Structure formats: structure tokens, C-alpha cells
């Protein structure tokens, strides 16, 4: 084994999503070149789902809400008891939509992860999807996480950060997830209109309870952009900056029921709901200017060195270590600032950084990473969402359902709980009982880990009393659990 063998294994397992049979051999002649070749301007690969857009899904969700309202009104009308036939139960309808659409999107993404030959490109993409988390934990966003990733994230992951930021923050899924769709300027004409009388309804966001008219500001998205997406919690902003930024973003919403049907479910800017006046955010004054005001603030945030520092720290933490070498973060930040936030450049800097190739695997795989790398090691791909969802739920990583806007945790301590290791093992037992067939587990181990395979694991795999047991030992080995 040479250094190059080890680097090939690191390229495929740490930068990528785990080795499919033959992949480490393919990376051997030039591990860095193997990774660099996966960077491309047009962005990430697209999963092969049903092709529905966020706009279509939001429109479908509104139809469901109408059905719900009608059911409720019908009930109130004839005084019938609460029982409704299953087929018309709006909750069951919603559950079916979520199961089929969200499940379908997630399954398509998992298959892409298991089958792709560009594992680094997909890992880089998953990093950005988690950085700009939209979670299916809200009913209104349950079916749009997949389209969000496809429309806002994947096309931009090797472009400029400013473009990725703009696409993510103005996507209808994000506007719904962080409540921007219903935020309006307290001194805007729309607020005055709502104050005058009962709601006659412009179609503001779908997430409204009956009878609750939007009356003002919601600062959720503004705060999370500052705290989680750009400068970070220590980026030097105050509560006043959050509120000012939230005011600047008012008007940004989603096309509603009584508006031009072409914009139903699409991002729109309503001048009438925009808070008039100039704003000051982090010491910079932005003259009144409709939607350009928030655009200018976003562009400035993207360019700030605090943003480069915060986001590069996260990249290093994701790819290399929970507590990454400061030299690596410095290197990434310098590349970011020199290139104006060109993510293709930053990706290349990561690949060329010596700190990223430390032979010790410091990252403990998340449940999704573990499962996908398991399928890759077997040379297979999941056959159905119903084989994926239960184990991800059990391991605490429910499909598309990050617990908060911060996304999934990165650190080993979050995922290596005692109970979680036992659950990984019971999954490995079930998985290998089906996946092994007539394969030699010694060969599977060599293909999956290359020069990273430790003698103790190789010995345990060789001594296994059955093929599934040998393969399960490989999947549960300390070096396979890490990258």
C-alpha cells in the first residue's frame, strides 16, 4: 500500500459518499484530479423524480386546504358527527400527498446518492442543502423540500455564493418555511387595508388559519439569514438589524388565490405590502427601493468577510473534522474572498488543502451517509422508500425533516449515542442478510475501504462464519462508520 492508495481511499470515502466496487481503483492514478473533475459550472446532478415543481406542489397543497375547509363547512352545515369517509378525510389526503411526493423525492435523491459516479459533487450539494435547510416538519412545506433542493440549490452549488443565497432565500419553500410569505410592513398600504375591515383577501401565503389576517412583521427569515446562512451568530448584528432587515424584506411573498393564476405558488413581490422607507442594516443605509432594497442587503451580506469565515468554517467542519484545523478554514476563506465567493474555486481549494487529507478519519457518518455508503459498498441502491424511511426515523434523521432551520447536526456526539449504534447494527444485520448474495465479504471490504481497511477489521471479516456476518462486520467497523 502506498500513500496514493490511501489518498484514493480518502478521496472516495471522505470527500465522496463512499466507494462503489471499483471506485477507489478509478481514483488511484490521480485522487485530486478525480475529485476536481466532478466540479462543473452547471451545478449538481438532478435526481430523477416526478419532475413536479414547487409551484405545482404549492398549488396542489392549496387544493387540499380548500378540501379541508369545505369538509369543515359541510360538517357545520348539516350538523353531522365528525366522522368522514377515509377518502375525503383531509388529514389522510395530506398524509397521502406527503407520503407519495415527499417520499418519492427523497427516494430519488437517495438513489442518486447510491448510484452516482460523482460522489464528491453530491456530498458538496448535500452540504449546501443542509446549510439552507428547508424542513418538511411544517405541513405547508412537507411536499416542497425536494423541489427546493432541485430548483434553488442544485443549479448553483458551483456558482457564486451570492447567487445561491438569492435563489435559496427567495424560493417559495423558504418563504413558507421561515414565515416570510405572511410578513407585511406594519406601515404599508396592505396593513392599512387589513386594519380597515374584515379580510377581503389578497392571497397571502397559504399558511393562514381561517379569519387571521396578516397584520405585520414576522422576523423569522431575516434572523435566520443573518444567524445561519450568512454572517453567523457572532457576525456582529443586533436585534435592531434583524428587525430592519425583516422590514426590508416585506412584500416578498408567494402568489395567492386571487392574483394572476400564472403566479399561484410562485415567488412574488407585492409593493403594497412592502414597508416604506430607508433601512439601516449592520451600519449600511439602504434607500427605499422596493424589492431591490432586500436584494442589496442580501448582496452585501454575501460579500462580508464574516460570511466567508462562518461558511468556510462549516465546510471544513463537514468535510474534515468537527473541530477543523484553523489553517484549513483560513485557506478556504482566502480562496472565497479572492474569488468573490466562487464556490467552484472554494471546492478546488478544499480538494488541494493538505489538511483535508489527514489519514485519521475524524468524521462520524450521519445516518444518511452511513446508509448510502452501505448501499454503495454493496454496489446497489435502495429499491423503495419503505426500506429507507423507517431506519432513518429510528436513527433520528427522518427524511427531509431536519429538526430546525440549523439543519442536521454535524458533530459525532449527536449521532453516536449508545442506542443509535445498536440500531445501526440491527439494520446492518437485516441489510446484509439480503444484500450479500454470493459476494465474498473480504473482497467487499477491500473495495469499500481500500487502504483504509485496518488489519483487525480485515481479520474479523475473514473469520466471519457467514457472508452476511462478514459484510455486517465491515459496515459496522470503526473505519466504515467514519470517513
Amino acid at each position, binding site marked *: 500500500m502506498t500513500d496514493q492508495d490511501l489518498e484514493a481511499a480518502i478521496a472516495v470515502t471522505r470527500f465522496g459518499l463512499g466507494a462503489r466496487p471499483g471506485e477507489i481503483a478509478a481514483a488511484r492514478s490521480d485522487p485530486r484530479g478525480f475529485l476536481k473533475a466532478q466540479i462543473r459550472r452547471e451545478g449538481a446532478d438532478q435526481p430523477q423524480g416526478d419532475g413536479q415543481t414547487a409551484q405545482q406542489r404549492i398549488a396542489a397543497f392549496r387544493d387540499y386546504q380548500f378540501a379541508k375547509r369545505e369538509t369543515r363547512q359541510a360538517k357545520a352545515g348539516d350538523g353531522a358527527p365528525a366522522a368522514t369517509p377515509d377518502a375525503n378525510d383531509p388529514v389522510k389526503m395530506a*398524509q397521502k400527498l406527503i407520503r407519495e411526493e415527499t417520499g418519492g423525492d427523497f427516494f430519488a435523491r437517495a438513489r442518486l446518492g447510491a448510484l452516482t459516479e460523482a460522489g464528491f459533487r453530491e456530498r458538496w450539494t448535500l452540504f449546501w442543502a443542509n446549510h439552507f435547510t428547508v424542513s418538511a416538519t411544517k405541513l405547508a412545506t412537507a411536499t416542497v423540500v425536494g423541489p427546493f433542493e432541485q430548483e434553488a440549490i442544485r443549479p448553483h452549488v458551483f456558482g457564486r455564493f451570492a447567487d445561491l443565497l438569492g435563489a435559496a432565500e427567495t424560493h417559495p419553500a423558504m418563504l413558507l418555511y421561515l414565515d416570510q410569505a405572511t410578513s407585511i410592513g406594519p406601515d404599508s398600504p396592505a396593513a392599512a387595508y387589513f386594519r380597515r375591515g374584515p379580510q377581503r383577501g389578497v392571497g397571502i401565503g397559504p399558511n393562514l388559519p381561517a379569519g387571521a389576517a396578516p397584520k405585520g412583521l414576522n422576523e423569522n427569515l431575516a434572523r435566520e439569514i443573518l444567524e445561519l446562512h450568512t454572517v453567523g451568530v457572532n457576525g456582529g448584528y443586533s436585534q435592531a438589524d434583524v428587525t430592519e432587515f425583516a422590514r426590508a424584506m416585506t412584500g416578498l411573498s408567494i402568489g395567492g388565490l386571487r392574483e394572476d393564476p400564472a403566479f399561484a405558488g410562485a415567488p412574488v413581490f407585492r409593493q403594497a405590502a412592502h414597508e416604506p422607507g430607508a433601512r439601516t442594516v449592520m451600519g449600511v443605509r439602504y434607500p427605499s427601493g422596493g424589492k431591490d432594497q432586500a436584494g442589496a442587503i442580501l448582496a452585501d451580506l454575501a460579500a462580508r468577510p464574516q460570511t466567508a469565515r462562518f461558511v468556510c468554517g462549516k465546510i471544513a467542519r463537514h468535510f474534515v473534522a468537527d473541530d477543523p484545523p484553523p489553517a484549513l478554514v483560513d485557506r478556504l476563506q482566502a480562496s472565497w474572498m479572492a474569488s468573490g465567493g466562487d464556490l467552484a474555486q472554494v471546492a478546488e481549494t478544499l480538494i488541494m488543502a493538505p489538511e483535508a487529507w489527514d489519514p485519521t478519519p475524524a468524521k462520524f457518518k450521519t445516518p444518511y451517509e452511513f446508509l448510502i455508503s452501505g448501499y454503495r459498498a454493496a454496489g446497489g441502491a435502495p429499491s423503495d422508500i419503505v426500506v429507507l424511511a423507517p431506519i432513518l426515523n*429510528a436513527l433520528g434523521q427522518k427524511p427531509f425533516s431536519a429538526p430546525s432551520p440549523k439543519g442536521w447536526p454535524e458533530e459525532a456526539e449527536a449521532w453516536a449515542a449508545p442506542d443509535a449504534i445498536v440500531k445501526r447494527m440491527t439494520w446492518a444485520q437485516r441489510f446484509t442478510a439480503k444484500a450479500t448474495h454470493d459476494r465474498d465479504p473480504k473482497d467487499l471490504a477491500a473495495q469499500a475501504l481500500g487502504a483504509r481497511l485496518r488489519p483487525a477489521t480485515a481479520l474479523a471479516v475473514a473469520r466471519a462464519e457467514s457472508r452476511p456476518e462478514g459484510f455486517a462486520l465491515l459496515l459496522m467497523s470503526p473505519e466504515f462508520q467514519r470517513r
Partner: protein
Amino acid sequence: MNLTRRTALAAAAGFGLTLDLVARQAFAGTESALARRKLVFVICRGGLDGLSLSPPIGDPDYAGLRRSLALEDKALPLDGTFALHPSLGAVHALAKAGQARIVPAVATPDRARSHFEAQDVLESGAAAVYGANSGWLNRAVSALSIQRKVEALSIGATAPLVLRGPAAVSSWSPGAVVDAEARLPTLLQDLYKDDPLLGPAFARGLATETMAQTAMADGDMPSMSSPPAAAGPGVAGLVRQGQDAARKLGETTAGFMREPNGPQIAAISLDGFDTHANQAGQLAPRLAYLDALLDGLNTGLGPDWKDTLVLVATEFGRTARINGTGGTDHGTASTALVLGGGLKPGGIVGDWPTLKASALFENRDLAPTLDMRSLFKGALAEQLGVERAALDATVFPDSAGARPVTGLV
């Protein structure tokens, strides 16, 4: 040579055992009482609105600030000022029996109004964010280890920060069924013997799984995610399912704690309390789950409830005023709950700052009158006997200024 060494080791072990027994006898009276004591920490993630959990319906400014969110006559009254949210029937019954008290204006030292920063501070027990990378409950286990062996368990698929740290703790969530016949667990323990992360974690996981077989409420698997089959039509059916699951989770946690070598300390997280919009509709089911969880703990612990203290806390409260979308934004002080069969009588814990405009924190939030660490320190001191010096220095670093609350149990 070998024999001699082994004999010497055995002798040393025997001697240690004797010493241990002598020490135990000396403290037997207080120690055995303390050894029965249990502490459960429930974290409500997302920023639980204290003004909805325990609405101050007697405060003259409450209705004006909360407008359509004000609960008024629907709430379950506690005293002249406070009530409980209508979803909290079981907690209300406990309060009426002197087994639950509210802490209506408590906050961590963090003022950034960031979920993640505030949760870090709530769980790490540090004075500021990034002040510690382990949790205060874990360090409490370490501090107690010089007196007696204390086991701790987190419920849930991921380990919460509050129980992470140098002391080895267990975790459990429903779902794993270990095949007792398989060789794999033994082979893996061998493969993990030099692994500082996987080795101890795996051994604990297997031990907890064995315990789970008897701890599980009526042999049934509680589910922590939304169950597939509806217990009735519509949203009401979903809420009933959620309540059933939460109650079962409480009972199962209680089952673990009643095992002979079961944990004395448990941590459970509930989420979904970030109610920026349509708060009334979002909060009612979440509080119903909290109520069912606490009810399940109470009934599951049975005779041990008298030795149990339950703390319920959140990372921050929410704005005093309703916002523009029928919800509330990130605020500062909120309500914590203390429950248990051994609670001392008393009214609210801490002072009520009122909702007068001049009393609001930054003209926006309920002002804190009590440091969250004071509450936690009081609970650890009185319930588990953690020494004051350890509380001030290691469990809650640099916290001598935050004096422990007294008179809880």
C-alpha cells in the same frame, strides 16, 4: 509469577470492596434516601411561549398585549394571577395537589434570541455560548460519582448536549430489536475495544436494550414520530395519537427508572414550540403532548413519584406582544415547570416582573427575574445532593453569582 500477581490483584480488589462497604455504612442513612431520588429533565425546543404555558390572566396588561392569543376564561386557574393552558389538564390536577409549580419568568444568561445559541447555553450550563462542550447533567453525574454511582439516560434517537460529556451515559429510543442469538454484538465489541467513541457507546446501548425489554410500557413500542394509522378522522385523530405516543413514552421512561439498576436521571426532548405564526393552533397539540408525557411519567413511576422531581424548561420565551402573523417572535424569559410527589408547598418560583410597559425587557419581552441556572442548581442540590462547590464551579462554571433556588423538595 503470574499466579502471585493475580492473587495480589484479587486481594487488592477485596480490600477495596471492604473499604467501600465501610464507607457505605457510614453514610447509609442519607445515601440510601438519595439513591432512590430521581430527576427528569424535559427540554421543550423551539422557544416555548411562557405566557401561553402559564398565562398571567390576572395581569392587567396581559389581554392587551396578547389580543387574539389571550386565553382568559379558557385557561385553568392556579391563583389570582396565573392559570395553565387548557391543554394542561394533568399538570393542573398535579398543581392543585401541590405536586406542580410554575417558574414564570426564568431565562438562561443568553440574550441573543437565537434558538441554537440559547439551547447550547440551556444545556451546557455555561454562562455564555461556547462556554462548555459538555452538558450540565453529564457533569452533575461526574460530580456525584465520588459519592455514589448514578446512571443517566437520554430518550431519543440523538444524544442531547445536556447529557453529553465525560461521564458515560445511556440513550434509548424505540425500535431496535437485538437478536440474542447472533454473534455480531460480541464480535463488534471486540472490534471496538480500542475505540473511545464506539466501544463504550455500544456496550451501553446493548445493556439499555436488554433493560428495555422489561421497561417498555405494557410490552408495546412507543413511537416518537407520527404513527401511520389514524386513531380517528381529521386533526383530532392525529392529536390523540400524539398524546397516546407521548403518554407511552412517559410510562416507558418511568419503567427504565424503576428497574433495579435503572437510571436516576433522564432527559427527554419535545420540539415544535417555535410558533411564529398561527400560534394558538400550533401550540395546543404540543402542550397536550407535554401534558400526556408528564402524566405518563407520573402514572408510570407510581410509588416512586414521591421520590421524583421533573423539570420542564425551554431555551427562551417569546415576545410579550402578538406579532403580525398570529404568533410571537423570539423573546427572553419564559415559564419552567417543576413537578414531583415530594414537592414542598409554595406559590410561584421566583418573582413576577409584571407585563407593564416599563417592566418589559427591551420594550419587547417578558423580563427574567430568575437565572435558569439557579433553578437547575437548586434541583440538583436538593433532589440529588450535589455539593454547592461542584455546582458553582464545574456543573455550572463560574456561576457562584447564580444562587441555588431553595425550598423545592
